[in-house]
Protein backbone atom coordinates (compact mmCIF):
# COMPACT_ATOMS: atom_id res chain seq x y z
CA UNK A 1 0.00 0.00 0.00
CA UNK A 2 1.67 3.18 -1.15
CA UNK A 3 1.65 6.48 0.65
CA UNK A 4 -0.50 8.07 -2.03
CA UNK A 5 -3.38 5.83 -1.08
CA UNK A 6 -3.73 7.66 2.22
CA UNK A 7 -4.45 10.90 0.44
CA UNK A 8 -8.25 10.74 0.39
CA UNK A 9 -8.31 10.15 4.10
CA UNK A 10 -5.79 12.94 4.66
CA UNK A 11 -7.79 15.40 2.65
CA UNK A 12 -11.01 14.79 4.56
CA UNK A 13 -9.30 14.98 7.94
CA UNK A 14 -7.30 18.02 6.95
CA UNK A 15 -10.44 19.88 5.98
CA UNK A 16 -12.16 18.97 9.21
CA UNK A 17 -9.25 19.93 11.38
CA UNK A 18 -8.90 23.25 9.63
CA UNK A 19 -12.48 23.88 10.60
CA UNK A 20 -11.82 23.02 14.20
CA UNK A 21 -8.65 25.08 14.43
CA UNK A 22 -10.30 28.05 12.75
CA UNK A 23 -12.68 28.39 15.66
CA UNK A 24 -9.88 29.88 17.70
CA UNK A 25 -8.24 31.90 14.98
CA UNK A 26 -8.99 35.45 13.93
CA UNK A 27 -10.82 36.14 10.71
CA UNK A 28 -7.77 36.79 8.58
CA UNK A 29 -5.82 33.80 9.84
CA UNK A 30 -8.81 31.57 9.35
CA UNK A 31 -9.09 32.81 5.79
CA UNK A 32 -5.47 32.09 5.02
CA UNK A 33 -5.70 28.69 6.62
CA UNK A 34 -8.78 27.87 4.55
CA UNK A 35 -7.15 28.91 1.31
CA UNK A 36 -4.04 26.91 2.09
CA UNK A 37 -6.08 23.91 3.10
CA UNK A 38 -8.13 23.94 -0.10
CA UNK A 39 -4.98 24.15 -2.16
CA UNK A 40 -3.36 21.27 -0.27
CA UNK A 41 -6.41 19.01 -0.45
CA UNK A 42 -6.80 19.69 -4.16
CA UNK A 43 -3.18 18.70 -4.64
CA UNK A 44 -3.79 15.55 -2.61
CA UNK A 45 -6.83 14.74 -4.74
CA UNK A 46 -4.75 15.27 -7.87
CA UNK A 47 -2.24 12.82 -6.46
CA UNK A 48 -4.99 10.28 -5.89
CA UNK A 49 -6.24 10.81 -9.43
CA UNK A 50 -2.78 10.21 -10.88
CA UNK A 51 -2.41 7.08 -8.83
CA UNK A 52 -5.72 5.66 -9.92
CA UNK A 53 -5.07 6.53 -13.56
CA UNK A 54 -1.79 4.67 -13.36
CA UNK A 55 -3.15 1.55 -11.71
CA UNK A 56 -6.34 1.64 -13.75
CA UNK A 57 -8.60 0.55 -10.92
CA UNK A 58 -10.15 1.89 -7.75
CA UNK A 59 -9.09 0.80 -4.33
CA UNK A 60 -10.71 0.65 -0.93
CA UNK A 61 -9.19 2.06 2.21
CA UNK A 62 -10.09 0.80 5.60
CA UNK A 63 -11.13 3.40 8.15
CA UNK A 64 -10.53 2.12 11.64
CA UNK A 65 -9.62 -1.34 12.73
CA UNK A 66 -12.46 -3.39 11.42
CA UNK A 67 -12.45 -4.68 7.86
CA UNK A 68 -15.48 -4.82 5.63
CA UNK A 69 -18.28 -5.68 6.03
CA UNK A 70 -18.27 -4.63 9.66
CA UNK A 71 -16.09 -1.58 9.56
CA UNK A 72 -16.08 1.62 7.60
CA UNK A 73 -14.17 2.27 4.43
CA UNK A 74 -13.65 4.83 1.74
CA UNK A 75 -13.02 4.15 -1.86
CA UNK A 76 -11.01 6.10 -4.40
CA UNK A 77 -11.00 5.77 -8.15
CA UNK A 78 -10.56 7.87 -11.25
CA UNK A 79 -14.04 9.39 -11.12
CA UNK A 80 -13.73 10.32 -7.46
CA UNK A 81 -10.31 11.78 -8.09
CA UNK A 82 -11.28 13.95 -10.99
CA UNK A 83 -14.44 15.16 -9.21
CA UNK A 84 -12.49 16.01 -6.08
CA UNK A 85 -9.90 17.95 -8.07
CA UNK A 86 -12.54 19.92 -9.93
CA UNK A 87 -14.57 20.70 -6.82
CA UNK A 88 -11.40 21.79 -5.06
CA UNK A 89 -10.46 24.15 -7.87
CA UNK A 90 -13.94 25.64 -8.03
CA UNK A 91 -14.02 26.12 -4.27
CA UNK A 92 -10.61 27.74 -4.20
CA UNK A 93 -11.53 30.18 -6.93
CA UNK A 94 -14.92 30.91 -5.35
CA UNK A 95 -13.36 31.73 -1.99
CA UNK A 96 -10.71 33.86 -3.70
CA UNK A 97 -13.26 35.69 -5.81
CA UNK A 98 -15.39 36.61 -2.85
CA UNK A 99 -12.50 37.43 -0.53
CA UNK A 100 -13.07 41.12 -0.10
CA UNK A 101 -16.85 40.84 -0.12
CA UNK A 102 -16.68 38.34 2.68
CA UNK A 103 -14.49 40.70 4.61
CA UNK A 104 -17.00 43.48 4.04
CA UNK A 105 -20.35 41.74 4.42
CA UNK A 106 -19.63 39.54 7.40
CA UNK A 107 -19.18 41.01 10.87
CA UNK A 108 -15.65 41.10 12.15
CA UNK A 109 -16.32 38.73 14.99
CA UNK A 110 -17.95 36.18 12.75
CA UNK A 111 -15.37 36.09 9.95
CA UNK A 112 -13.73 32.95 11.21
CA UNK A 113 -17.12 31.26 11.48
CA UNK A 114 -17.60 31.79 7.77
CA UNK A 115 -14.35 30.07 6.99
CA UNK A 116 -15.21 27.25 9.36
CA UNK A 117 -18.32 26.70 7.27
CA UNK A 118 -16.22 26.60 4.10
CA UNK A 119 -13.87 24.07 5.66
CA UNK A 120 -16.74 21.87 6.79
CA UNK A 121 -18.35 22.18 3.39
CA UNK A 122 -15.20 20.99 1.69
CA UNK A 123 -14.72 18.14 4.11
CA UNK A 124 -18.28 16.97 3.64
CA UNK A 125 -18.00 17.20 -0.15
CA UNK A 126 -14.82 15.16 -0.11
CA UNK A 127 -16.39 12.64 2.22
CA UNK A 128 -19.44 12.31 -0.02
CA UNK A 129 -17.14 11.76 -2.98
CA UNK A 130 -14.99 9.13 -1.31
CA UNK A 131 -17.27 7.33 1.10
CA UNK A 132 -18.20 3.72 0.66
CA UNK A 133 -20.62 3.56 3.57
CA UNK A 134 -24.21 4.66 3.53
CA UNK A 135 -24.58 5.95 7.04
CA UNK A 136 -21.37 7.94 6.79
CA UNK A 137 -22.88 9.42 3.68
CA UNK A 138 -25.95 10.41 5.67
CA UNK A 139 -23.90 12.06 8.38
CA UNK A 140 -21.90 14.04 5.88
CA UNK A 141 -25.02 14.98 3.99
CA UNK A 142 -26.26 16.55 7.19
CA UNK A 143 -22.95 18.29 7.78
CA UNK A 144 -23.17 19.60 4.24
CA UNK A 145 -26.66 20.90 4.91
CA UNK A 146 -25.66 22.65 8.10
CA UNK A 147 -22.56 24.16 6.53
CA UNK A 148 -24.66 25.34 3.62
CA UNK A 149 -27.15 26.90 5.99
CA UNK A 150 -24.30 28.64 7.74
CA UNK A 151 -23.09 30.05 4.45
CA UNK A 152 -26.54 31.39 3.67
CA UNK A 153 -27.26 33.03 6.96
CA UNK A 154 -23.85 34.47 7.75
CA UNK A 155 -25.23 37.72 6.42
CA UNK A 156 -27.86 38.68 8.90
CA UNK A 157 -30.27 40.37 6.54
CA UNK A 158 -33.90 39.41 6.69
CA UNK A 159 -34.05 37.81 3.31
CA UNK A 160 -31.07 35.62 4.16
CA UNK A 161 -32.65 34.34 7.34
CA UNK A 162 -35.94 33.52 5.69
CA UNK A 163 -34.08 31.85 2.82
CA UNK A 164 -32.09 29.87 5.36
CA UNK A 165 -35.11 28.56 7.22
CA UNK A 166 -36.80 27.63 3.99
CA UNK A 167 -33.64 25.85 2.89
CA UNK A 168 -33.43 23.96 6.17
CA UNK A 169 -37.06 22.86 5.99
CA UNK A 170 -36.74 21.53 2.45
CA UNK A 171 -33.38 19.97 3.21
CA UNK A 172 -34.68 18.19 6.25
CA UNK A 173 -37.55 16.78 4.24
CA UNK A 174 -35.04 15.37 1.83
CA UNK A 175 -32.75 14.10 4.59
CA UNK A 176 -35.64 12.43 6.36
CA UNK A 177 -36.59 10.56 3.24
CA UNK A 178 -32.98 9.62 2.58
CA UNK A 179 -32.61 8.33 6.12
CA UNK A 180 -35.71 6.20 6.04
CA UNK A 181 -34.56 4.83 2.71
CA UNK A 182 -31.21 3.89 4.24
CA UNK A 183 -32.91 2.31 7.18
CA UNK A 184 -35.14 0.22 4.99
CA UNK A 185 -32.12 -0.81 2.96
CA UNK A 186 -30.34 -1.89 6.11
CA UNK A 187 -33.43 -3.78 7.11
CA UNK A 188 -33.61 -5.64 3.85
CA UNK A 189 -29.92 -6.29 3.20
CA UNK A 190 -28.34 -6.13 6.63
CA UNK A 191 -25.44 -4.07 5.37
CA UNK A 192 -24.51 -0.44 5.46
CA UNK A 193 -21.30 -0.67 3.50
CA UNK A 194 -22.05 -0.12 -0.14
CA UNK A 195 -20.33 -3.05 -1.80
CA UNK A 196 -21.69 -5.80 0.47
CA UNK A 197 -25.09 -4.15 0.28
CA UNK A 198 -24.97 -4.41 -3.47
CA UNK A 199 -24.30 -8.12 -3.33
CA UNK A 200 -27.34 -8.54 -1.14
CA UNK A 201 -29.44 -6.44 -3.44
CA UNK A 202 -28.35 -8.49 -6.44
CA UNK A 203 -29.32 -11.62 -4.58
CA UNK A 204 -32.71 -10.22 -3.72
CA UNK A 205 -33.35 -9.08 -7.25
CA UNK A 206 -32.36 -12.47 -8.58
CA UNK A 207 -34.66 -14.34 -6.24
CA UNK A 208 -37.44 -11.81 -6.54
CA UNK A 209 -37.85 -11.35 -2.82
CA UNK A 210 -38.69 -7.97 -1.33
CA UNK A 211 -39.52 -6.59 -4.72
CA UNK A 212 -41.78 -3.86 -3.42
CA UNK A 213 -39.51 -2.77 -0.57
CA UNK A 214 -36.63 -2.41 -3.05
CA UNK A 215 -38.81 -0.30 -5.25
CA UNK A 216 -39.82 1.84 -2.30
CA UNK A 217 -36.19 2.19 -1.26
CA UNK A 218 -35.13 3.29 -4.72
CA UNK A 219 -37.95 5.79 -4.91
CA UNK A 220 -37.43 7.22 -1.45
CA UNK A 221 -33.67 7.62 -1.76
CA UNK A 222 -33.97 9.17 -5.20
CA UNK A 223 -36.67 11.60 -4.12
CA UNK A 224 -34.81 12.47 -0.94
CA UNK A 225 -31.62 13.38 -2.73
CA UNK A 226 -33.55 15.00 -5.56
CA UNK A 227 -35.23 17.34 -3.07
CA UNK A 228 -31.86 18.23 -1.64
CA UNK A 229 -30.28 18.94 -5.00
CA UNK A 230 -33.15 21.04 -6.25
CA UNK A 231 -34.79 18.96 -8.92
CA UNK A 232 -38.04 20.38 -10.25
CA UNK A 233 -40.61 20.47 -8.61
CA UNK A 234 -38.63 20.64 -5.39
CA UNK A 235 -36.73 23.73 -6.42
CA UNK A 236 -38.63 26.49 -4.66
CA UNK A 237 -35.89 27.17 -2.19
CA UNK A 238 -33.19 27.70 -4.81
CA UNK A 239 -33.75 31.27 -6.02
CA UNK A 240 -33.83 32.76 -2.55
CA UNK A 241 -30.93 30.69 -1.30
CA UNK A 242 -28.52 31.15 -4.17
CA UNK A 243 -29.50 34.69 -4.85
CA UNK A 244 -28.98 36.34 -1.54
CA UNK A 245 -25.86 34.78 -0.10
CA UNK A 246 -22.45 36.41 -0.20
CA UNK A 247 -20.60 35.99 -3.50
CA UNK A 248 -18.53 33.09 -2.26
CA UNK A 249 -21.62 31.61 -0.71
CA UNK A 250 -23.63 31.84 -3.92
CA UNK A 251 -20.82 30.40 -5.99
CA UNK A 252 -20.20 27.51 -3.60
CA UNK A 253 -23.89 26.76 -3.02
CA UNK A 254 -24.87 26.79 -6.66
CA UNK A 255 -21.73 25.25 -7.99
CA UNK A 256 -20.90 22.59 -5.48
CA UNK A 257 -23.51 21.75 -2.92
CA UNK A 258 -26.21 20.37 -5.18
CA UNK A 259 -23.59 18.55 -7.19
CA UNK A 260 -22.35 16.73 -4.12
CA UNK A 261 -25.80 15.24 -3.56
CA UNK A 262 -26.16 14.30 -7.22
CA UNK A 263 -22.76 12.60 -7.08
CA UNK A 264 -23.91 10.66 -4.05
CA UNK A 265 -27.06 9.65 -5.88
CA UNK A 266 -25.06 8.40 -8.85
CA UNK A 267 -22.79 6.52 -6.48
CA UNK A 268 -25.74 4.85 -4.76
CA UNK A 269 -27.22 3.96 -8.14
CA UNK A 270 -24.04 2.29 -9.27
CA UNK A 271 -22.72 0.85 -6.07
CA UNK A 272 -25.75 -0.15 -4.07
CA UNK A 273 -28.91 -0.46 -6.10
CA UNK A 274 -27.34 -1.50 -9.38
CA UNK A 275 -27.92 0.76 -12.34
CA UNK A 276 -29.49 -1.97 -14.45
CA UNK A 277 -32.01 -2.71 -11.71
CA UNK A 278 -32.94 0.90 -11.69
CA UNK A 279 -33.43 1.05 -15.40
CA UNK A 280 -35.50 -2.09 -15.20
CA UNK A 281 -37.92 -0.58 -12.72
CA UNK A 282 -38.40 2.56 -14.79
CA UNK A 283 -37.36 4.68 -11.86
CA UNK A 284 -35.06 6.47 -14.25
CA UNK A 285 -38.01 7.50 -16.35
CA UNK A 286 -39.44 9.44 -13.45
CA UNK A 287 -36.12 11.26 -12.99
CA UNK A 288 -36.00 11.87 -16.74
CA UNK A 289 -39.46 13.38 -16.71
CA UNK A 290 -38.72 15.69 -13.82
CA UNK A 291 -35.39 16.62 -15.37
CA UNK A 292 -37.05 17.58 -18.62
CA UNK A 293 -39.71 19.63 -16.82
CA UNK A 294 -36.99 21.36 -14.83
CA UNK A 295 -35.09 22.26 -17.97
CA UNK A 296 -38.08 24.05 -19.43
CA UNK A 297 -39.68 25.49 -16.32
CA UNK A 298 -36.42 26.74 -14.89
CA UNK A 299 -35.75 28.74 -18.02
CA UNK A 300 -39.32 29.98 -18.22
CA UNK A 301 -39.11 31.34 -14.68
CA UNK A 302 -35.74 32.88 -15.43
CA UNK A 303 -37.11 34.83 -18.35
CA UNK A 304 -39.69 36.53 -16.16
CA UNK A 305 -37.22 37.58 -13.47
CA UNK A 306 -35.97 41.13 -13.22
CA UNK A 307 -33.55 40.57 -10.36
CA UNK A 308 -30.49 39.17 -12.08
CA UNK A 309 -29.33 37.07 -9.13
CA UNK A 310 -32.60 35.21 -9.06
CA UNK A 311 -32.40 34.84 -12.82
CA UNK A 312 -29.01 33.15 -12.54
CA UNK A 313 -30.38 30.98 -9.73
CA UNK A 314 -33.34 29.86 -11.85
CA UNK A 315 -30.91 28.98 -14.59
CA UNK A 316 -29.34 26.62 -12.05
CA UNK A 317 -32.70 24.89 -11.74
CA UNK A 318 -32.71 24.36 -15.48
CA UNK A 319 -29.15 23.05 -15.50
CA UNK A 320 -29.82 20.60 -12.70
CA UNK A 321 -32.73 19.45 -14.87
CA UNK A 322 -30.21 18.73 -17.63
CA UNK A 323 -28.17 16.57 -15.27
CA UNK A 324 -31.18 14.55 -14.15
CA UNK A 325 -32.29 14.17 -17.73
CA UNK A 326 -28.93 12.64 -18.52
CA UNK A 327 -29.20 10.27 -15.58
CA UNK A 328 -32.74 9.47 -16.64
CA UNK A 329 -31.68 8.42 -20.12
CA UNK A 330 -30.59 5.14 -18.61
CA UNK A 331 -27.41 4.64 -20.61
CA UNK A 332 -23.72 4.91 -19.79
CA UNK A 333 -23.34 7.62 -22.37
CA UNK A 334 -26.07 9.60 -20.65
CA UNK A 335 -24.32 9.23 -17.32
CA UNK A 336 -21.02 10.43 -18.79
CA UNK A 337 -22.82 13.44 -20.19
CA UNK A 338 -24.39 14.14 -16.79
CA UNK A 339 -21.09 13.95 -14.94
CA UNK A 340 -19.42 16.19 -17.49
CA UNK A 341 -22.26 18.62 -17.10
CA UNK A 342 -21.80 18.55 -13.34
CA UNK A 343 -18.23 19.74 -13.92
CA UNK A 344 -19.16 22.24 -16.61
CA UNK A 345 -22.00 23.70 -14.60
CA UNK A 346 -19.95 24.02 -11.41
CA UNK A 347 -17.28 25.96 -13.21
CA UNK A 348 -19.67 28.09 -15.24
CA UNK A 349 -22.18 28.93 -12.53
CA UNK A 350 -19.46 29.98 -10.14
CA UNK A 351 -17.99 32.15 -12.91
CA UNK A 352 -21.40 33.75 -13.49
CA UNK A 353 -21.97 34.57 -9.84
CA UNK A 354 -18.48 35.97 -9.27
CA UNK A 355 -18.59 38.07 -12.45
CA UNK A 356 -22.07 39.27 -11.56
CA UNK A 357 -20.71 40.52 -8.25
CA UNK A 358 -18.08 42.47 -10.12
CA UNK A 359 -20.81 44.04 -12.23
CA UNK A 360 -22.98 44.88 -9.23
CA UNK A 361 -20.03 46.64 -7.62
CA UNK A 362 -19.89 49.19 -10.38
CA UNK A 363 -23.65 49.63 -10.57
CA UNK A 364 -24.22 50.91 -7.08
CA UNK A 365 -24.84 47.44 -5.74
CA UNK A 366 -28.07 47.21 -7.62
CA UNK A 367 -29.09 44.02 -9.32
CA UNK A 368 -31.84 44.94 -11.70
CA UNK A 369 -31.57 45.29 -15.45
CA UNK A 370 -31.85 49.03 -15.63
CA UNK A 371 -28.98 49.64 -13.23
CA UNK A 372 -26.78 47.09 -14.95
CA UNK A 373 -27.03 48.78 -18.30
CA UNK A 374 -23.56 49.46 -19.55
CA UNK A 375 -21.96 47.74 -16.57
CA UNK A 376 -19.58 45.88 -18.86
CA UNK A 377 -17.97 49.16 -19.82
CA UNK A 378 -17.43 50.10 -16.21
CA UNK A 379 -15.92 46.76 -15.31
CA UNK A 380 -14.61 45.17 -18.51
CA UNK A 381 -13.19 42.00 -17.00
CA UNK A 382 -16.38 41.14 -15.17
CA UNK A 383 -18.30 41.87 -18.37
CA UNK A 384 -16.14 39.49 -20.37
CA UNK A 385 -16.35 36.87 -17.63
CA UNK A 386 -20.12 37.09 -17.50
CA UNK A 387 -20.41 36.98 -21.28
CA UNK A 388 -18.26 33.86 -21.50
CA UNK A 389 -20.29 32.24 -18.75
CA UNK A 390 -23.53 33.15 -20.49
CA UNK A 391 -22.30 31.90 -23.87
CA UNK A 392 -21.20 28.67 -22.23
CA UNK A 393 -24.66 28.20 -20.72
CA UNK A 394 -26.22 28.81 -24.13
CA UNK A 395 -23.88 26.28 -25.73
CA UNK A 396 -21.54 28.33 -27.82
CA UNK A 397 -18.81 26.24 -29.41
CA UNK A 398 -15.33 26.10 -27.84
CA UNK A 399 -16.88 26.53 -24.38
CA UNK A 400 -17.79 23.86 -21.89
CA UNK A 401 -21.54 24.11 -22.41
CA UNK A 402 -21.22 23.10 -26.04
CA UNK A 403 -19.43 19.88 -25.15
CA UNK A 404 -22.11 19.10 -22.56
CA UNK A 405 -24.89 19.60 -25.07
CA UNK A 406 -23.02 17.54 -27.64
CA UNK A 407 -22.60 14.70 -25.16
CA UNK A 408 -26.27 14.86 -24.18
CA UNK A 409 -27.40 14.84 -27.79
CA UNK A 410 -25.19 11.98 -28.89
CA UNK A 411 -26.22 9.94 -25.86
CA UNK A 412 -29.86 10.65 -26.66
CA UNK A 413 -29.35 9.19 -30.12
CA UNK A 414 -28.57 5.85 -28.48
CA UNK A 415 -31.92 5.45 -26.73
CA UNK A 416 -34.63 5.32 -29.36
CA UNK A 417 -37.73 6.02 -27.24
CA UNK A 418 -36.30 9.02 -25.49
CA UNK A 419 -34.40 10.45 -28.43
CA UNK A 420 -36.96 12.80 -29.94
CA UNK A 421 -38.19 14.34 -26.68
CA UNK A 422 -34.62 14.81 -25.50
CA UNK A 423 -33.46 16.54 -28.65
CA UNK A 424 -36.52 18.74 -28.82
CA UNK A 425 -36.23 19.73 -25.19
CA UNK A 426 -32.50 20.41 -25.62
CA UNK A 427 -33.24 22.72 -28.53
CA UNK A 428 -36.08 24.53 -26.79
CA UNK A 429 -34.24 25.01 -23.54
CA UNK A 430 -31.15 26.25 -25.37
CA UNK A 431 -33.29 28.83 -27.09
CA UNK A 432 -34.85 29.87 -23.78
CA UNK A 433 -31.40 30.10 -22.18
CA UNK A 434 -30.32 32.28 -25.07
CA UNK A 435 -33.27 34.60 -24.47
CA UNK A 436 -32.53 35.53 -20.91
CA UNK A 437 -28.77 35.26 -20.90
CA UNK A 438 -28.10 37.07 -24.13
CA UNK A 439 -30.66 39.70 -23.22
CA UNK A 440 -28.64 40.44 -20.10
CA UNK A 441 -25.33 40.39 -21.98
CA UNK A 442 -26.62 42.92 -24.48
CA UNK A 443 -27.93 45.07 -21.64
CA UNK A 444 -24.49 44.98 -20.07
CA UNK A 445 -22.96 46.26 -23.27
CA UNK A 446 -25.55 48.95 -24.04
CA UNK A 447 -24.98 52.57 -23.33
CA UNK A 448 -26.86 54.24 -20.53
CA UNK A 449 -29.78 56.28 -21.77
CA UNK A 450 -30.39 59.82 -20.59
CA UNK A 451 -33.68 58.85 -19.00
CA UNK A 452 -32.04 56.31 -16.66
CA UNK A 453 -31.63 57.26 -13.03
CA UNK A 454 -28.09 58.27 -12.17
CA UNK A 455 -26.15 55.68 -10.21
CA UNK A 456 -24.98 56.26 -6.65
CA UNK A 457 -21.41 57.30 -6.10
CA UNK A 458 -20.03 53.82 -5.56
CA UNK A 459 -19.70 53.23 -9.26
CA UNK A 460 -16.04 54.13 -9.32
CA UNK A 461 -14.95 51.21 -7.16
CA UNK A 462 -12.33 49.06 -8.85
CA UNK A 463 -12.64 45.34 -8.30
CA UNK A 464 -10.06 43.80 -6.04
CA UNK A 465 -7.23 41.77 -7.48
CA UNK A 466 -8.72 38.65 -5.93
CA UNK A 467 -11.96 39.02 -7.84
CA UNK A 468 -10.18 39.65 -11.10
CA UNK A 469 -7.84 36.74 -10.58
CA UNK A 470 -10.77 34.46 -9.86
CA UNK A 471 -12.62 35.58 -12.99
CA UNK A 472 -9.57 35.01 -15.19
CA UNK A 473 -8.96 31.55 -13.73
CA UNK A 474 -12.62 30.59 -14.12
CA UNK A 475 -12.54 31.67 -17.76
CA UNK A 476 -9.44 29.53 -18.20
CA UNK A 477 -11.16 26.57 -16.55
CA UNK A 478 -14.16 26.96 -18.82
CA UNK A 479 -11.98 27.09 -21.92
CA UNK A 480 -10.06 24.01 -20.81
CA UNK A 481 -13.29 22.11 -20.32
CA UNK A 482 -14.53 23.32 -23.68
CA UNK A 483 -11.50 22.85 -25.82
CA UNK A 484 -9.62 19.91 -24.28
CA UNK A 485 -12.58 17.93 -23.11
CA UNK A 486 -11.35 14.64 -24.52
CA UNK A 487 -9.08 13.58 -21.64
CA UNK A 488 -11.69 14.62 -19.09
CA UNK A 489 -14.46 12.71 -20.84
CA UNK A 490 -12.15 9.72 -21.10
CA UNK A 491 -11.39 9.94 -17.40
CA UNK A 492 -15.10 10.09 -16.59
CA UNK A 493 -15.84 7.07 -18.77
CA UNK A 494 -13.00 5.08 -17.23
CA UNK A 495 -14.04 6.20 -13.78
CA UNK A 496 -17.63 5.11 -14.30
CA UNK A 497 -16.46 1.73 -15.55
CA UNK A 498 -14.66 1.11 -12.26
CA UNK A 499 -17.28 2.83 -10.17
CA UNK A 500 -19.43 -0.11 -9.14
Amino acid at each position, binding site marked *: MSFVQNFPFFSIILAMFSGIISSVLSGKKARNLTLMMIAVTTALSAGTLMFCLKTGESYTYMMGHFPAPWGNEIRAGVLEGVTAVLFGIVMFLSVTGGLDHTARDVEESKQNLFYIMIDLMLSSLLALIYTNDL*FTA*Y*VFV*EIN*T*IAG*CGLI*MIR*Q*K*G*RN*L*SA*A*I*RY*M*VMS*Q*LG*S*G*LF*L*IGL*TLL*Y*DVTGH*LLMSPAKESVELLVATGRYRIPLLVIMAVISVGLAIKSGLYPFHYWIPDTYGYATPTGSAVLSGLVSKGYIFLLIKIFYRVLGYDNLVGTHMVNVLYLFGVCGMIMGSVHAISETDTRRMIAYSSVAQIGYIYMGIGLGTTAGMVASVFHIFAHSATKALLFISAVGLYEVSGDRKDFVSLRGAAFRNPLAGIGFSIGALSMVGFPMLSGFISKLLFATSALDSPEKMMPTLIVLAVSTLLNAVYFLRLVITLYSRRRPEDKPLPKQTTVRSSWALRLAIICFIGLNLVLGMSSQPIVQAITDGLAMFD
Partner: protein
Amino acid sequence: MNINLVQHLVLNIEETVSIILFGIGFTILLLHRNLVKKIMGMNIMDTATYLFLAVKGYITGRGVPIVVDGIQDVEAYINPVPSGLVLTGIVVSVSSTALMLALTVRLYERYHSLDLDEILILAKEEEEQI
Protein backbone atom coordinates in the same frame (compact mmCIF):
# COMPACT_ATOMS: atom_id res chain seq x y z
CA MET B 1 -55.81 -11.29 2.22
CA ASN B 2 -56.69 -8.29 4.28
CA ILE B 3 -56.54 -10.21 7.51
CA ASN B 4 -53.12 -11.43 6.54
CA LEU B 5 -51.98 -7.84 6.00
CA VAL B 6 -53.34 -6.69 9.34
CA GLN B 7 -51.70 -9.66 11.02
CA HIS B 8 -48.38 -8.70 9.50
CA LEU B 9 -48.79 -5.12 10.60
CA VAL B 10 -49.60 -6.16 14.15
CA LEU B 11 -46.76 -8.63 14.31
CA ASN B 12 -44.33 -5.91 13.30
CA ILE B 13 -46.07 -3.29 15.35
CA GLU B 14 -42.90 -1.29 15.99
CA GLU B 15 -42.12 -0.88 12.36
CA THR B 16 -45.71 -0.03 11.57
CA VAL B 17 -45.87 2.60 14.26
CA SER B 18 -42.57 4.09 13.19
CA ILE B 19 -43.66 4.42 9.60
CA ILE B 20 -46.92 6.02 10.68
CA LEU B 21 -45.01 8.41 12.91
CA PHE B 22 -42.61 9.14 10.05
CA GLY B 23 -45.52 10.04 7.85
CA ILE B 24 -47.00 12.27 10.54
CA GLY B 25 -43.70 14.03 11.15
CA PHE B 26 -43.02 14.50 7.43
CA THR B 27 -46.44 15.96 6.84
CA ILE B 28 -46.14 18.33 9.77
CA LEU B 29 -42.75 19.51 8.53
CA LEU B 30 -44.11 20.03 5.07
CA LEU B 31 -47.51 21.51 5.62
CA HIS B 32 -47.62 23.40 8.89
CA ARG B 33 -46.95 27.09 8.75
CA ASN B 34 -45.79 27.56 12.29
CA LEU B 35 -42.03 27.26 12.52
CA VAL B 36 -41.91 25.65 15.94
CA LYS B 37 -44.39 23.04 14.85
CA LYS B 38 -42.31 22.37 11.76
CA ILE B 39 -39.32 21.71 13.97
CA MET B 40 -41.38 19.42 16.12
CA GLY B 41 -42.49 17.59 13.01
CA MET B 42 -38.89 17.18 11.94
CA ASN B 43 -38.04 15.71 15.31
CA ILE B 44 -40.96 13.33 15.19
CA MET B 45 -39.86 12.23 11.73
CA ASP B 46 -36.29 11.63 12.76
CA THR B 47 -37.25 9.92 15.99
CA ALA B 48 -39.55 7.61 14.09
CA THR B 49 -36.65 6.57 11.89
CA TYR B 50 -34.52 5.90 14.94
CA LEU B 51 -37.28 3.80 16.41
CA PHE B 52 -37.34 1.74 13.24
CA LEU B 53 -33.59 1.38 13.30
CA ALA B 54 -33.42 0.50 16.95
CA VAL B 55 -36.03 -2.19 16.50
CA LYS B 56 -33.87 -3.73 13.83
CA GLY B 57 -31.21 -4.41 16.33
CA TYR B 58 -33.40 -5.87 18.99
CA ILE B 59 -33.37 -9.59 19.52
CA THR B 60 -35.87 -10.97 21.98
CA GLY B 61 -34.44 -12.14 25.26
CA ARG B 62 -31.06 -10.57 24.97
CA GLY B 63 -29.42 -7.75 26.83
CA VAL B 64 -27.96 -4.35 26.17
CA PRO B 65 -24.62 -4.57 24.32
CA ILE B 66 -22.42 -3.56 27.27
CA VAL B 67 -20.15 -6.28 28.53
CA VAL B 68 -21.30 -7.13 32.03
CA ASP B 69 -19.91 -9.79 34.32
CA GLY B 70 -17.31 -10.64 31.73
CA ILE B 71 -19.85 -12.42 29.51
CA GLN B 72 -18.30 -12.03 26.09
CA ASP B 73 -20.59 -14.42 24.31
CA VAL B 74 -22.17 -12.85 21.24
CA GLU B 75 -25.39 -14.70 21.93
CA ALA B 76 -26.04 -12.68 25.06
CA TYR B 77 -26.35 -9.27 23.46
CA ILE B 78 -28.50 -7.58 20.87
CA ASN B 79 -27.02 -6.25 17.61
CA PRO B 80 -25.02 -3.20 18.64
CA VAL B 81 -24.66 -1.64 15.21
CA PRO B 82 -28.14 -0.14 14.94
CA SER B 83 -27.79 1.33 18.40
CA GLY B 84 -24.62 3.03 17.30
CA LEU B 85 -26.37 4.33 14.24
CA VAL B 86 -29.21 5.69 16.34
CA LEU B 87 -26.76 7.50 18.60
CA THR B 88 -25.12 9.13 15.59
CA GLY B 89 -28.47 9.98 14.18
CA ILE B 90 -29.63 11.57 17.41
CA VAL B 91 -26.57 13.81 17.38
CA VAL B 92 -27.27 14.86 13.82
CA SER B 93 -30.90 15.49 14.59
CA VAL B 94 -30.06 17.58 17.63
CA SER B 95 -27.65 19.76 15.65
CA SER B 96 -30.19 20.41 12.95
CA THR B 97 -32.84 21.18 15.54
CA ALA B 98 -30.52 23.58 17.33
CA LEU B 99 -29.74 25.39 14.10
CA MET B 100 -33.36 25.69 13.15
CA LEU B 101 -34.38 26.89 16.60
CA ALA B 102 -31.67 29.54 16.48
CA LEU B 103 -32.95 30.69 13.12
CA THR B 104 -36.51 30.75 14.46
CA VAL B 105 -35.47 32.94 17.37
CA ARG B 106 -33.71 35.36 15.04
CA LEU B 107 -36.66 35.50 12.72
CA TYR B 108 -39.05 36.08 15.58
CA GLU B 109 -36.95 38.92 16.92
CA ARG B 110 -36.99 40.50 13.50
CA TYR B 111 -40.51 39.93 12.27
CA HIS B 112 -42.46 39.04 15.43
CA SER B 113 -44.10 36.15 13.72
CA LEU B 114 -43.70 32.41 13.72
CA ASP B 115 -45.66 31.90 10.53
CA LEU B 116 -43.34 31.00 7.68
CA ASP B 117 -45.52 32.36 4.89
CA GLU B 118 -45.94 35.64 6.71
CA ILE B 119 -42.22 35.89 7.31
CA LEU B 120 -41.46 35.33 3.65
CA ILE B 121 -43.82 38.10 2.66
CA LEU B 122 -42.41 40.48 5.27
CA ALA B 123 -38.85 39.71 4.20
CA LYS B 124 -39.71 40.40 0.59
CA GLU B 125 -41.32 43.75 1.47
CA GLU B 126 -38.36 44.68 3.57
CA GLU B 127 -36.03 43.99 0.71
CA GLU B 128 -38.04 46.01 -1.75
CA GLN B 129 -37.97 49.03 0.47
CA ILE B 130 -34.22 49.21 0.49
